[in-house]
């Protein structure tokens, strides 16, 4: 996907690339916000907020579990689909609606391979604690982050279709993993302490 959108910088024009990036971001943010809204609304409908302390402790435990999983302390398998976004979107929908469709799919998060398991913690937070509005906001921010590599990959002057390599993932894999471990452990312990004080 990055490999098809990024070459627009050179092959087409800067305007086409900007349109594609904006469309992709709109799709990702909208789709993710919709997921957060649905999860928060479901959580509210099921009245899970009644057991707030238990819900907080469960979410905190999942955050800490994800931190352990990211640190390779536990290798417990987590569910994940082994698929990617279809290549044909660009051909089928064109240079604007194609990236938008990719954004729609990526914003959901679960339809493609989940490499960093913190996603489950965020989704569970939206379901158990977020409520519909906050769930939508937090998941929209997830969509914002999800669409960021498209922008990062196309910014350099010599931007090519190198995909994740252009976005710096393969070279900074261990740093990204460490950042995830630290963030998940920090938020998990914060939630646990806050939940116990309630």
């Amino acid at each position, binding site marked *: 996907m990055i490999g098809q959108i990024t070459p627009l910088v050179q092959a087409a024009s800067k305007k086409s690339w900007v349109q594609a990036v904006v469309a992709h971001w709109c799709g990702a943010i909208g789709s993710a916000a919709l997921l957060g809204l649905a999860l928060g609304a479901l959580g509210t409908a099921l009245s899970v907020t009644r057991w707030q302390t238990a819900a907080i402790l469960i979410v905190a435990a999942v955050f800490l579990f994800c931190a352990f999983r990211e640190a390779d*302390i536990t290798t417990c398998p987590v569910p994940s689909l082994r698929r990617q976004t279809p290549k044909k979107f660009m051909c089928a929908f064109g240079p604007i609606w194609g990236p938008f469709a990719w954004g729609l799919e990526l914003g959901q998060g679960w339809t493609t391979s989940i490499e*960093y398991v913190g996603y489950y913690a965020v989704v569970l937070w939206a379901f158990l604690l977020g409520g519909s509005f906050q769930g939508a906001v937090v998941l929209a*921010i997830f969509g914002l982050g999800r669409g960021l*590599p498209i922008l990062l990959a196309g910014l350099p002057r010599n931007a090519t279709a190198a*995909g994740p390599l252009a976005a710096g993932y393969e070279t900074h894999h261990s740093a990204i993993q460490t950042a995830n*471990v630290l*963030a998940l452990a920090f938020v998990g312990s914060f939630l646990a302490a806050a939940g116990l004080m309630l």
Partner: protein
Amino acid sequence: MYRHARRLLLGLSARELRIERNLRLHEHGLRPPLHTKQLELLLRLLQLHVRRVLLQWQRLFVRYQVQRQLRRVPLCIRAGRGGSVILRQTIGSSRLAAVSRASAPLAVAAAAGIGLSLKMSPEYTSQLWLLLPAAVAFLVGWSNAASP
């Protein structure tokens, strides 16, 4: 002709054959004493032969050690198609190594989280309640974008 056939028969190079012949003649007293250079060459040949044998043994030993170590290496391959293949490889007692490597940063992060939760006044805590998961969501979203 005779020298060539003899060289082929013994599997020696021309120089080695010459040295061997000189040695033989020297034993029969038909030649003046060997030149120092020739002696040095002989010693060098002997040294090279010994080194070759030692290297063969060393290579066998290293191969055996590598094969033994390879049996202990667990490879956890997280592969996303489309070129983003990420190898997570831990060698030896991987779990213990991961625990020892990650325990210090984990403990620091956990302590910071607990400390922040204890220090914060309730009105700020309610803001962090949204801000912290939002920050994690952004990081997780950006990280996971490597896979598609």
